[in-house]
């Protein structure tokens, strides 16, 4: 999954700095100097980044679409008329009709829910595992760290899609094919990246003076981790999470496309593309619309993550 890798690329231009300074000066002039935190700065930058706004608006629309698909379409996606099978887009059916003669626009809209659910579930699940194990492993070191690191290495060796196919073959036969089995398979293969992020940032902070000071003042390990160590890694984890939501949405679609993820009658863009590809000659819209929506969804999360990384990068301050 190459899109999961972090690069420290900076898309933002440097134009923002002058305006921020001017703003600060105005504030000082008024007699109230605001301290600017990393997050405050980042937020100010993000609000000015057109890319971030684009990504945020699209992803919010998609989340809304997955919660209340009725807001976007009044048509029942299951109300079908076989005589309209594979008709192209028209004024009454914007995306045309599918093989069964169902309104394709409604079907594609309803597909957002499973994608968004899986994207968020996998990211939340793998971050919980990664943060807990990464913090323990980085903070305590020793034998525990060795075991966790070795396990991470082993899991990293497994190819993601291939591993997910094998895990899903096992899960599908015992638990059925649901949003939760697909999520579980992807969590099993996805916790290593947040773990490594956490572990390295914990190790880099562990020796810092303020951590020693907290310890000297009698703070317990748990408090030190929660108050001093974890907040330091919030930034990278948040950037990772935003991009990963997009990547996992893509992964779900891929698995469903391969016939190993979700199955009918679930709505899934991957499934729609899979069943539409047979008719690509005379009904290209069957592949086109779910493909476009899927790509835009992934794109919006990746753009947001990119913008977030630039905004949080101290080199840009």
């Amino acid at each position: 999954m190459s899109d999961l890798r972090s690069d420290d690329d900076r898309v933002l231009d440097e134009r923002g700095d002058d305006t921020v300074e001017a703003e600060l000066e105005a504030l000082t002039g008024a007699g109230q100097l605001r301290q600017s935190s990393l997050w405050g700065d980042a937020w100010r930058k993000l609000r000015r980044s057109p890319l971030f706004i684009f990504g945020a608006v699209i992803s919010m629309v998609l989340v809304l679409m997955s919660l209340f698909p009725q807001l976007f379409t009044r048509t029942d996606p299951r109300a079908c008329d076989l005589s309209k099978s594979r008709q192209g887009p028209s004024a009454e059916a914007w995306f045309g009709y599918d093989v069964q003669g169902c309104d394709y626009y409604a079907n594609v809209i309803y597909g957002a829910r499973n994608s968004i659910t899986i994207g968020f579930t996998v990211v939340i699940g793998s971050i919980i595992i990664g943060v807990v194990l990464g913090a323990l492993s980085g903070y305590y070191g020793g034998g525990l760290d060795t075991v966790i690191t070795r396990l991470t290495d082993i899991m990293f060796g497994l190819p993601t899609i291939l591993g997910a196919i094998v895990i899903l073959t096992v899960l599908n036969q015992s638990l059925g094919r649901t949003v939760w089995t697909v999520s579980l398979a992807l969590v099993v293969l996805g916790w290593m990246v947040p773990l490594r992020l956490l572990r390295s940032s914990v190790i880099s902070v562990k020796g810092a003076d303020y951590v020693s000071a907290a310890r000297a003042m009698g703070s317990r390990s748990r408090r030190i981790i929660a108050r001093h160590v974890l907040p330091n890694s919030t930034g990278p984890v948040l950037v990772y999470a935003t991009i990963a939501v997009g990547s996992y949405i893509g992964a779900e679609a891929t698995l469903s496309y391969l016939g190993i993820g979700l199955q009918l009658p679930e709505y899934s863009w991957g499934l729609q593309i899979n069943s539409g590809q047979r008719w690509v000659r005379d009904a290209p819209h069957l592949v086109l619309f779910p493909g476009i929506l899927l790509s835009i969804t992934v794109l919006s999360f990746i753009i947001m993550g990119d913008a977030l990384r630039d905004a949080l990068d101290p080199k840009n301050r």
Partner: protein
Amino acid sequence: MGRYIARRALLAVPVLLGASFLIFALVYAIPGDPIRALAGDRPLPAAVQAQLRDDYNLNDPLLVQYGKYVLALTQGDFGTDFSGRPVRDTIEQRLPITARLAVVAIIFEAIFGLTAGIVAGLRRGSFLDSLVLVSTTIAVSIPVFVLGFIAQVTFGLNLGWFPIAGINQGWYSYILPGLVLAAASTAYVARLTRTSLAENLRNDYVRTAKAKGLKKRTIIGKHTLRNSLIPVVTFLGADFGALMAGAIVTEGVFNIPGLGRAVFDAIGRQEGAVVVGIVTLFVLVFIIFNLLVDVLYAALDPRIRYE
């Protein structure tokens, strides 16, 4: 250096064993009886079933089965599938196909990724730079199977420039799948080159070279580029292993009979030996290329010494 390589190679052994055991255990956990599935509608006589079960070690507990498997593996024996064909034959037949696909992809990655990255890195903020940034973001966002499908329909079906599927036209039939497989990594190479080049151009030695009156072309070609390409070259090396394992989707879309297809079909038939053998091979390739990259890193960057 020798000691470093030996240590890394030794560390790779538990990773390889662990990963193959995980897959082995997973395949073992797939419910259903492969021998009965093999027989189809007419059940085999009990004696034949027992014999087959014994031949494939299916009566042993998981760990014993795995132990026997690894022992055979160390002697180059990948086991046989249920039709009696050695898995090694399948691998020998299909490995070149997947490797060829990965080689084509790596070449595209290097050519397009480097060109785009260098152009963007040298002229930051220009129109071309923005174009590279936008197109790399898009390339990363389109899932491989969608991209493959678009390419197939546009260049195969409508324009007729490339074969739609299969590998009947030699290297030529690998071009389109190779491009599709390379897309996401190409975007990554372009961004990596751009960042690395832009960072290197800000270094003191570039200013010194400029002050000495060297031509811009010499500064970039002789000094900056060489330094900036170190992370890119190492990424390309490591990516080769990832591409081979990641080819499963591309092979599916373009109907290429490579290793990925073989695993995919084998999972459906519960052919444990084929699945475990090929996945272990993928992990091995992945580990070897990562090891090579670490060594390459030390060779390219004199600041890094592992002694």
